[in-house]
């Protein structure tokens, strides 16, 4: 069992693919078709390009504040690919690659960051909760989903994300404790990207690892190289199998690095050095997987460059659709607070319509 071998209390970390793109632990390598790996690589590149484009649009004043996932593509994608369509995804707000894999259309996601709540309505078939801004509060929802799955005796699991800062929140701990007590089929992934805005991981907690927090709740915990797609897949597969077998939750700490800002309102250069960022760029999850695919002849430099070009064009088209989207009308902004309008809301809507009609 990986979570036994890689005991977080012994400061062990699961790594399979080295930054040079070599599989260092072939015995732990998950069995995946090369073609599938190539497809996942494309999702990661697509997410990277989408983030870069979004940052550009934002700087041009065409997008609201945006939180890019750059550098963390493997951490979220590696986890979600180990789940199935019937499983649930409970996001924080920095898992773009996972959302795309789950089936959330980029147009919808952009629409949300563009400031249009129509983007919050994901397709009915996509079992994904909305982006959750109040840090780690969504972990309790993941547990509730897991409890409901057990109640209905369904063969489903829940994959939930938070960041390193989230591990300080009360709801993080309440959720882990509940999940342990009720053996909820939940895989909790902490994307430890080293910073909660400007507060570094070492200022967040005295714990040596974040994975070891699982020990206190009597559940398995494992620290994984989060920039290593294969390690993330292997750890999550094991956790998913355990959850499906009725053996309860797992905590996975994905050690990664936020190469971009917290959001477009943040200037990371004031709290971290260029040297540090450069060192992490060498461990970039996309670069690493590219090296692997090149070595396996499953990708060429030309094809790779073409991918970036194609995706940029595709994303520009998607964003132009977003920009030509209709803003919500008055009735719509009133429509989703209750099942039906309360007498007071009816009255307020009437007043609002009078204003629209030229009233003052």
């Amino acid at each position, binding site marked *: 069992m990986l979570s036994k071998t890689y005991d977080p209390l012994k400061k062990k970390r699961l790594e399979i693919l080295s930054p040079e793109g070599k599989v260092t632990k072939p015995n732990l390598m998950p069995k995946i078709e090369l073609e599938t790996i190539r497809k996942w690589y494309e999702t990661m590149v697509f997410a990277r390009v989408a983030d870069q484009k979004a940052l550009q649009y934002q700087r041009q004043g065409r997008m609201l504040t945006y939180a890019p996932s750059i550098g963390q593509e493997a951490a979220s994608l590696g986890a979600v690919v180990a789940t199935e369509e019937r499983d649930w995804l409970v996001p924080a707000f920095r898992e773009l690659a996972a959302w795309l894999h789950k089936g959330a259309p980029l147009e919808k996601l952009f629409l949300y960051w563009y400031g249009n709540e129509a983007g919050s309505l994901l397709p009915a078939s996509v079992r994904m*909760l909305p982006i959750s801004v109040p840090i780690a509060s969504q972990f309790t929802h993941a547990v509730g989903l897991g409890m409901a799955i057990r109640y209905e005796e369904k063969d489903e699991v829940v994959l939930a994300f938070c960041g390193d800062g989230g591990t300080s929140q*009360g709801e993080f701990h309440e959720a882990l404790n*509940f999940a342990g007590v009720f053996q909820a089929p939940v895989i909790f992934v902490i994307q430890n990207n080293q910073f909660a805005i400007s507060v570094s991981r070492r200022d967040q907690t005295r714990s040596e690892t974040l994975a070891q927090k699982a020990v206190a709740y009597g559940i398995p915990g494992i620290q994984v190289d989060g920039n290593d797609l294969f390690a993330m897949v292997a750890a999550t597969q094991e956790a998913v199998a355990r959850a499906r077998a009725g053996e309860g939750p797992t905590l996975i700490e994905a050690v990664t690095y936020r190469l971009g800002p917290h959001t477009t309102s943040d200037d990371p250069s004031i709290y971290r050095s260029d040297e540090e960022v450069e060192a992490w760029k060498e461990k970039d999850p996309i670069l690493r997987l590219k090296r692997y695919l090149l070595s396996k002849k499953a990708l060429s430099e030309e094809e790779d460059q073409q991918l970036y070009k194609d995706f940029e064009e595709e994303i520009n088209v998607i964003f132009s659709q977003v920009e030509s989207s209709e803003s919500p009308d008055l009735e719509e902004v009133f429509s989703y607070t*209750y099942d039906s309008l309360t007498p*007071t809301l009816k*009255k307020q809507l009437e007043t609002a319509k009078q204003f629209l009609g030229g009233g003052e």
Partner: protein
Amino acid sequence: MALLNNIGALTQAFDQEMELDPRVVLYGEDAGFEGGVFRATKGLQEKYGKKRCFDTPLAEAGIVGSAIGMAIYGLKPVVEIQFSGFVLPAFNEIVAHAARYRNRTRGKYPLSMVIRMPYGGGIRALEHHSESIEALFAHIPGLKVVIPSTPYDTKGLMIAAIRDPDPVIFMEPKRIYRAFKQEVPEESYTVEIGKARIVQPGSDLTLVAWGAMVREAQKAIDLLADTEISVELIDLRTISPIDRDTLIQSVKKTGRFLVVHEAVSSFGPGAELISLITEEAFLSLEAPPTRLAGYDIPVPLPKGEHHFMITPKKIVSEIKRLIAY
């Protein structure tokens, strides 16, 4: 028909809804095996099993947050917060999520769930056990806030709350949990959320109360029996959404408005009701619309609590003042 107190009415409502709808699950601290510290869920674990009625770890955000997850999945969680004074750790889940989930998913995941809690003073309780915080919830768009005052309404409103498509904060006046009994129909029925009840019609003054204050208001009216003063007593029953029409129509008839609540006065529910009356029935008013409410202090411990409590005598005094205005 059976004679039930408010606790008995609650238990019967849970029992009947659990029987009817397998999606209904009930949980909280001590809510399973023991049946809750007030015994409102007594016997339900025995009848429906640990799967549907169970104890949780002592963590209110976990209780409410997990209920949100269950409701997203399509279950109908009814969760117990042991005392309203302990709901505060769950406020993030209630305000940031429960109240907004329909909006945050554009209707894809509406939350049908009930968060119930005993509230209010008058039971000689320890610190943090006596406050009335309905205004904190009523201020949040997306929540419904219900407070029953009789066993009949308790049962009907609870069944309505469980079936409601929106999250309902169900506040139970613990002072009258076992204070009196009432004939309650055996069969299942609902009392509409958002509708006030005219307890007794009158022509000189509209008196609005809810929860344990309805009884105090009735006692006040009894004290006025030998006067000419005719009071219309309205039990609000739902704090949010407010039954605007019933209140406005009543004041248009009586010309005077007094709201009585245990919650502290400033920024309390009374302020909202008086705004409504001032905006909608201004020309009918013969006296300033008035609130008789808790002082803006923490509810004193039992030795000093009587200074805080709203009594029938205080209500009578305010009614007489407004009639003579």
